[in-house]
């Protein structure tokens, strides 16, 4: 789904995905455009997926977007840029597109500007490559862009300082992650963090009082439940997580390291590499012990969806995943609906620190834009509290304003947000992307490669020692 310029086929695809068209209409328009039956089949399938994912069919999409008057009372958006055209690039995840278009329409209505929504590649890595090429060419084609939590360091040389449009009330850690040399590269838009999913029905059945609070408990609970369940469900496993050699493993391993008092990979203030320590090594060795034990041996090839399918099929007692898996687990037809809970990941010792790797997205304004002030106004609007509230209700995107986690309207739509507040206010840990700037990918590749080798049975002490040397090399290049 690498779409960029609107054209009839893309428009049809989008409308089909959003479930705006009937099957007949898709067929009719598709045939008129001379599309192959295979492509139309995909669209029809996408249409039914889109229809399923719409949370509440009785409500029109975008119904929670505040009215123009309410927004103006709160944000006082400037109308000085009426007639100005700006392009912003965001993601394109099926049903989200229609909502984002409604958000754009409201902004255009208030300000008289013409904001164009460009849909970027679905894969984040592909989108980053696209941004980098656009920025390398100093192109003014993109005025604003949605950037990942690990990109501020990479995008900083091309960023407009957004400190004057950053509003109060965001989680401070996310703001810090977006700030390089006192320049605000991105405004927090919505967030993500690693969570522990636990099966409440099984915890009760096996006599445990609640989700595990330490890794020792998790191992014990998982083993007990697994041994009991395996008689009826031979494929049952204890704990699934993301163990393939990719960015997701960096996120998982950082959580193990920090929660075992292993410090950061790189000290965010001094830039010193701090990964080689006993606690970090012990944390990685513990995780290596799960492979083929409480976790399937295949976990070293798992990404998010591999584990989630096992979990949602009812074949795992615990799962480490991002918040998106919650809504899917509660869907109709899910084997575990109403039988699980989410919360903080375990800590290394009783009463110790829990850690959740920070994910999420920010809004960035390009320094090559010819309409920077207009683009900043757009960034201020889409990241504002009323707009994040609407997004939380309709898209289940986690807000970056702490207040919204106790907002009654938000909690009515997403009751589990209450449990997530401590994760974001206390436990969230950013990856070392700000301190390593445009070398972050190198840092992450070195880190997940070493951890992957440890999970595969390599000697942790020597691998971490090599990792420390590799990371020092990389940081010396900065």
């Amino acid at each position, binding site marked *: 789904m690498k779409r960029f310029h609107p054209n009839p086929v893309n428009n049809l695809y989008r409308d089909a995905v959003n479930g705006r068209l009937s099957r007949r209409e898709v067929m009719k328009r598709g045939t008129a455009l001379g599309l192959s039956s295979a492509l139309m089949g995909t669209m029809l399938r996408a249409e039914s997926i889109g229809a399923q994912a719409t949370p509440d069919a009785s409500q029109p999409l975008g119904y929670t977007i505040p009215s123009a008057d309410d927004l103006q009372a709160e944000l006082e958006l400037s109308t000085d840029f009426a007639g100005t055209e700006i392009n912003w690039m965001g993601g394109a995840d099926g049903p989200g597109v229609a909502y984002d278009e409604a958000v754009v329409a409201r902004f255009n209505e208030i300000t008289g500007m013409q904001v164009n929504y460009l849909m970027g590649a679905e894969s984040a890595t592909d989108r980053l490559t696209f941004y980098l090429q656009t920025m390398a060419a100093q192109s003014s084609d993109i005025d604003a862009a949605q950037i990942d939590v690990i990109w501020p360091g990479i995008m900083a040389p091309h960023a407009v300082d957004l400190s004057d449009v950053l509003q109060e009330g965001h989680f401070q850690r996310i703001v810090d992650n977006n700030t390089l040399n006192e320049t605000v590269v991105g405004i927090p838009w919505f967030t993500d963090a690693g969570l522990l999913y636990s099966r409440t029905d099984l915890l009760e059945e096996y006599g445990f009082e609640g989700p595990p609070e330490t890794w020792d408990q998790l191992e014990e609970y998982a083993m007990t439940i697994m041994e009991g369940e395996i008689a009826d469900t031979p494929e049952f496993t204890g704990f699934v997580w993301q163990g393939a050699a*990719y960015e997701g493993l960096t996120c998982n391993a950082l959580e193990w390291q920090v929660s075992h008092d292993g410090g950061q990979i790189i000290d965010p203030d001094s830039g010193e590499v701090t990964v080689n320590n006993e606690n970090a090594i012990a944390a990685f060795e513990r995780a290596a012990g799960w492979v083929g034990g409480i976790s399937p041996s295949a976990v070293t*090839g798992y990404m998010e969806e591999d584990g989630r399918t096992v979990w949602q099929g009812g074949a795992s007692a615990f799962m480490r995943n991002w918040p998106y898996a919650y809504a899917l687990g509660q869907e109709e037809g899910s084997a575990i609906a109403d039988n699980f809970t989410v919360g903080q990941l375990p800590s290394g010792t009783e009463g110790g620190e829990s850690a959740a790797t920070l994910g999420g997205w920010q809004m960035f304004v390009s320094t090559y834009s010819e309409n920077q002030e207009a683009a900043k106004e757009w960034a201020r609007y889409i990241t504002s509290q009323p707009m994040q509230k609407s997004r939380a209700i309709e898209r289940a995107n986690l807000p970056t304003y702490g207040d919204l986690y106790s907002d009654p309207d938000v909690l009515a739509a997403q009751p589990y947000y209450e449990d997530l507040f401590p994760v974001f206010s206390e436990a969230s840990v950013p990856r070392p992307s700000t301190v390593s700037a445009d070398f972050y990918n190198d840092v992450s590749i070195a880190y997940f490669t070493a951890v992957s080798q440890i999970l595969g049975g390599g000697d942790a002490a020597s691998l971490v020692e090599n990792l420390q040397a590799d990371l020092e090399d990389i940081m010396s290049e900065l």
Partner: protein
Amino acid sequence: MASDQQAAQITTAAEVEEQATSEHKKSFRDRGTLARQQERLGWILVVPVLVVIAIVAIYPLIETFRLSFTDTRLASIREPNYVGFANYRNTLDDPQFWSSMQNTAIFTVATVTLETLLGMIIALTIHSNFRGRGIVRTSMLVPWAIPTVVSSLLWEWMFHDRFGVINSILKQLNLMDESTFLAWAANPSTALGAVIAVDVWKTTPFMALLLLAGLQVIPTDVYEAAYVDGASKIQQFFHITLPLLKPALLVALIFRTLDAFRVFDMIFVLNGYALDTMSIAIYTQQQLIASQRIGEGSAPAVLIFLTIGTLAFIYTRLIKVEEG
């Protein structure tokens, strides 16, 4: 016998030519002009192709050579510097480079050998006459016709430890149960074998097709003569089929060896950057794009180019020896 016939033909052709020249001695000078004109036309027709090759092949190649001596980064505002042979030293010092070289070498030897053997068996089978040959020949090509990314995703699910059909079949055969289910592509001991299996499944039809084309140009009278002389089927294969198939076989081997050596898409989709199956092309891509090290990544790219160039040179020499 066949060569005698050929020689006879050539003599006749030469004689005809000679006659023709003697008959048209007057117009000899005009013919020279014509030849020159034709040569010029030939050049005019070829130039666009040469320009395209220069743009899409030679320029990038030279640029890669140049970049491999710098520390250029992808989309960076850092000024690139000339670093001499540092990138080559770093590459040759990198254990990951050597492990991916080793993976690539094992992959290449294993897939090319298996594909050649299986392709030969299939080609010989299809070459013989039997009912439904057309359908078999067409259906045989299905794996080759499926886009690589699609077949990789397909195999990814077949290899899956919980939902994969391979574990399921082994369970039906009582060779496995849930506790020993393998994630074929993720498990370090089976990962490389798994990607080899996918490539063999996918590319054997291509090999078979190339060999079949070679088989079809071997004249049948040679076999008839051998039959009359009392040669067994096996003798026929080793003394007639194989020697006459050699040129086609060598061409097929060149294609497959070079293709296998630069394998990227299938492994990348199936296993990403996992070290157990990382090929040299994936290693290079990781350096170039994921790490944004255009300069440092160009060094292994040049090394791949040189290796493939050497392999191609050896193969073409083999063919030349064959022809000579």
